[in-house]
């Protein structure tokens, strides 16, 4: 029964929400303080439960709890490396966000409302990531987006907030349907709702065409959840809700799509074609989001587009069957992005700091070429070095290719230092940082593979389709990396500025969506036209 312990985490948060709901607005000076204390206390306790759960995993190994329910439906826990890591991540970011909101929302008339739905969302995500059975998984999945919807409409009178929430609502409901469909197919294929049993059977190659169908539905649900092109619209408008909501998205909400694919990795491997589709969508979204991000002058919009891109990268990793790396990505990106949103108020100071040390040294094409060569050399050295030290492990071509993509990114850092106008000391510094980044990346990758070895399937050897995808990814990411490193050389060409305009508008996906959903039509309550 010890494996049921993680259930305490969502239970505590729900209890906190209920207590606040019962006394939301007793005297204005007393209640916010009491509610804020209560909420943070609950979040801290949930975090403690997550830590203990991790301890249980380390001490006793992976396992399932009993099912508290009937006919395969009810509450049960699957505790393994995937769920324990997600529990810890969600509870940690959850605590940070709750603590932040405690002061940030002070004085808001609907502070208690916010806290209740914040705790509700977190509880739903915690239930999701520890799910031992399909019914709980699907219910928690749906509950997450319903609770989030309440937060997106924290200022219900804001038309732009309504617009974003409506987009999200529609996307989410289609995603719910897809996930439910996947659940039905999984039960039909494997005859159980227990996730660990399904995964074990899938790993043995069972499931047949029903499992292939389930994989396709799972992929579709993941694409919708993680704001993949062209369903990313709502994510780029989510700053219509208070800042902590943007950070909360990274506590297993927007990245739940990736979690879904990782959780059902064994099922996904049944359908290589679905994985290839994911790789294509994810890869495209990553590059698309990354390019749009470059054009965004508002800090939260830039961060949101960066999230779109990073979610694309995560989906690409899943599509290449690099599940441990995708999990690493979820953890790394969530921590970074939650911090970036919560500290976005510092953008004024950061932009001002850019100008202080004088003009930026622009690397020439030759400098960039040297940077790429050097970056690949660094990667090779780090790879061989770590290989010689701790063994090469079972490096799949997919993983090597992904490493190469990341090293294209590191080349940009090197290029800045190699610019002719850059002083020698700057060259040394950026080279040093590049080396540190490469070592850190390889080390984290190894840790992720080692930590999830028991829970996640190995990347299968690539077939012709996978090789084609790998080459396509290398080529497209390589080109964009080259373009980004040489940006100052071409970005002011009239043709490039024309492209910039379309990119800055996100290729009009949002405009089309607004047209279809009548986002700019005047509702009965809008009097905005009068005051212009």
């Amino acid at each position, binding site marked *: 029964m010890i494996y049921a312990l993680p259930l305490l985490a969502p239970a505590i948060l729900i209890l906190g929400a209920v207590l606040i709901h019962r006394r939301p607005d007793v005297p204005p000076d007393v209640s916010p303080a009491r509610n804020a204390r209560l909420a943070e206390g609950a979040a801290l306790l949930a975090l403690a439960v997550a830590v203990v759960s991790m301890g249980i995993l380390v001490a006793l190994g992976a396992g399932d709890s009993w099912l508290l329910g009937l006919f395969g439906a009810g509450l049960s826990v699957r505790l393994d490396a995937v769920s324990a890591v997600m529990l810890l991540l969600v509870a940690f970011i959850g605590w940070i966000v709750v603590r932040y909101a405690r002061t940030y929302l002070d004085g808001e008339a609907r502070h208690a409302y916010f806290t209740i739905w914040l705790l509700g969302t977190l509880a739903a995500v915690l239930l999701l990531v520890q799910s031992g059975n399909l019914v709980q998984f699907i219910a928690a999945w749906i509950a997450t987006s319903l609770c989030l919807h309440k937060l997106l409409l924290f200022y219900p009178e804001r038309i732009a907030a309504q617009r974003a929430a409506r987009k999200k609502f529609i996307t989410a409901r289609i995603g719910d349907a897809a996930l439910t469909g996947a659940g039905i197919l999984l039960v039909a294929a494997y005859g159980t709702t227990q996730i660990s049993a399904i995964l074990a059977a899938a790993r043995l190659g069972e499931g047949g065409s029903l499992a292939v169908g389930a994989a396709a539905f799972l992929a579709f649900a993941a694409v919708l959840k993680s704001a993949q092109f062209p369903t990313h619209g709502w994510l780029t408008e989510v700053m219509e809700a208070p800042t902590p909501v943007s950070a909360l998205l990274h506590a297993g909400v927007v990245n739940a799509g990736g979690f879904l694919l990782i959780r059902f990795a064994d099922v996904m491997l049944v359908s290589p074609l679905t994985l290839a589709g994911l790789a294509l969508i994810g890869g495209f979204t990553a*590059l698309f989001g990354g390019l749009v991000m470059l054009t965004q002058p*508002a800090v939260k919009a830039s961060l949101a587009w960066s999230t779109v891109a990073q979610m694309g990268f995560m989906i690409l990793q899943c599509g290449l069957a690099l599940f441990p790396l995708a999990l690493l990505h979820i953890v790394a990106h969530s921590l970074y992005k939650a911090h970036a949103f919560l500290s976005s*108020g510092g953008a004024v100071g950061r932009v001002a700091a850019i100008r*202080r040390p004088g003009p930026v040294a622009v690397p020439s094409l030759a400098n960039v070429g040297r940077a790429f060569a050097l970056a690949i050399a660094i990667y090779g050295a780090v790879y061989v070095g770590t290989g010689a030290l701790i063994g090469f492990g079972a490096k799949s071509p997919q993983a090597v290719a992904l490493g190469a993509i990341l090293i294209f990114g590191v080349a940009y850092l090197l290029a800045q230092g190699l610019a002719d106008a850059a002083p020698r000391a700057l060259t040394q510094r950026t080279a040093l940082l590049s080396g540190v980044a490469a070592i850190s990346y390889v080390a984290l990758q190894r840790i992720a593979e080692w930590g999830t070895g028991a829970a996640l399937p190995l990347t299968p050897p690539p077939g012709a389709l996978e090789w084609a995808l790998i080459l396509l990814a290398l080529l497209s990411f390589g080109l964009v990396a080259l373009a980004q490193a040489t940006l100052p050389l071409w970005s002011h060409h009239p043709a490039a500025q024309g492209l910039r305009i379309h990119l800055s508008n996100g290729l009009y996906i949002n405009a089309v969506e607004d047209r279809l959903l009548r986002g700019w039509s005047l509702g009965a309550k809008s009097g*905005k036209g009068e005051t212009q």
Partner: protein
Amino acid sequence: MKVQNHAGFSGPHLELIAASETASRAVPPLWPLASSVAVNPFLGQSGQSLAATSALLSRVAGVPATMPRAWYAARIESGAITDVDLDAALKAAADGPDSVSALRAAAAAPDGEITALPTVAALAARASGIDWPGLIEERIGAWAAGYFDEGQALWQVTPGRGAYQSWQIFASRDLTPEIAGLAGFAATVARMPDSARTALSEACDALGLAPGAAPTYFHQLLLGLGGWAQLARQKLWEAELAGGTTPVTSDLLTIRLIWEKALLLRYAPQIGAEWAEICAAHTAPVALSDVQIVPCILQDAAERGAQRALAATLLSAGETVAEGRPSLQAAFCIDVRSEVFRRALEQVDARVQTLGFAGFFGLTASHRAFASDVEERRLPVLLSPGVSSSAISADADATDLAAHLAARLAARTQRAWGRFKLAAVSSFAFVEATGPVYAGKLLRDALGTAQPPAPGARAPHLEGDLPLEAKVAAASKILHAMSLTDAFAPLVLIAGHGAGVVNNPHASALQCGACGGYSGDVNARLLAGLLNDAEVRRGLAVDGIDVPPDTVFLGALHDTTSDTITLFEGDARVSDGTLRYARDVLAAAGVLARGERALRLPRANADGATLVARGRDWSETRPEWALAGCCAFIAAPRSRTRGKALYGRAFLHDYDWTRDEGYGVLELILTAPVVVASWISLQYYGSVVAPDVFGGGNKLLHNVTGGIGVVEGNGGALRSGLPWQSVHDGHALAHDPLRMNVCIEAPEEAVTGILERHADVRALFDNRWMHLFLTDASGAMIARYSGDLTWEDMRAEAA
């Protein structure tokens, strides 16, 4: 009708172009947030009365320039406004209800209906059900954010183009309007003439706009663009200060007019006739009615109530100054936040003497910080830089230069890392390699252990070969202006102020306004350095200012969030005993000041101990109240106010008219610090009475754009003014919207003479944007300025 060059404009077109120039000056400037200062939102209306401005705003923005009547009614109810105040306000008003009881009844009545004249966009929205004003705001915002971006986006809009040209390139490619239902907009824009002025004329022709309708219509369109038009106005301000000009504001107007034109063409059958009526309505003069007049009289009554309270405070028993040489002198900025600390400091030790002077301390410095190329204009925005300074002196030694290079290298490495973090493909590498580090950063910031940026460790140096005579002249002028020419203490602190806060887009608004939105440490240290210079002191002695050899001037920085003082001890040699004494009294004063401020701040514990950590909290939207509550400016010797609790609501400027031959110092005070204070006071006023038009919006939704300003959420309009959280604590207003009372202890004819010479300053008082009083040596308010260079004796009232 089409004309190709400026010389060919027809008469009406020239009038329209002139109207666009006038309208450009009707909106207030907005300074970028990197170093922002408070701005009077009614700057363009200072030649008009509050009632006339209220009527104008009603027409162009649909908001009044006063509070809702219920607010005044509540003050009457609470006794803050008495019948005496109502009666006096009625008598002073040209028009209004017949009696006090009628005025009371009017206060209890509901607010009059106010609607702005609709724009074409508003009419089109009504006709089509599509939110055109919202879409226009979003589209112009999308372009403007890119155009004015100071470095947030890595892929920038090509710089160097005019605003109109840049927009034309953008809008002739942007497909959004067509997707939303305005077919052919991009082509329309592409066909517009290259010259903005020609385009403006063309658009006005298409709109059938007569020059007579232009002033309020243009004003309305520019105001509707929110902060973008105001940011453009600031570019114009800067250009004019440098002796030039820029068309950027009227370019924005032209852009907005092209939208109007396109929508009129699209919806002409439905809205054409109504639009013609609106044009006619714009031609009519702005009319005043009871809707504006009654609240303005009530506003005056509320201010009279506050003046009564101020008069009582000034007459209350003060503290007598200790005889003999002061143990410590400390000069602070006139900023209202200094008042609390000064009072506390004097309370700790009666031998301490404090002074108030504008926080740039008379040095209009253009400063370069350590390892920085950026010229920081640390001076009031009304002025141009007079001296330049740098954190590294021209004759720096090898160690200094090495440190300088190392700091620059670190900054450049950090910048390269920042670009690595934000670029398209490298951001993936960044996340995968360093993401887990952010667990630590989240923990650090959640627990509030990150420190706000500290003041520079290195003393600033004046640059260029300033001749000794110039230095002596400057030092002498500043000391005279501070009324500090004798009785020097052994240690004289020159204390600038700043606010140590984190994660706050509006951090610069908490810094020193007289230092251009930077903290005041540089100017304070420069002045202290100047006054410690032995040669300068010899020159001062010739001028009749004898600074004792044992007197040391020392720069300091008052952190207004934590009420702690940093002494720049390394800048000058001070004896250990004196230094220890100074540290002790300053620390004790900090405790008192925090305790007093804690009473007003939400979530502060009673003794104010949490205030020290407040600036480090990344989730804090109210780190301090800044100048909220400011309501008085007092220019008099400190002895008149010493020991009298003004609760951080008064600007205190030391001034002794008996030592001011020719009233040159008084002229300086009335034309510079008083004007700056009026900008601050009226910014608070505007942000409270018209938060949607002149307020900075909701901090919870703030999204920093271009490193220069904030928008709410995903929204298009840049916000100017103070955020709602800066004037409201969630339950009640933290600032009573009352216009400022300026109290001057000086002879009547001296003040009148200065007003006579400075029409701009006089307009502020004649139109009651501030109230002006004369005080006497007892602190009593003895005369009220009643406009047109006349005074009303108040001694009879008091008796």
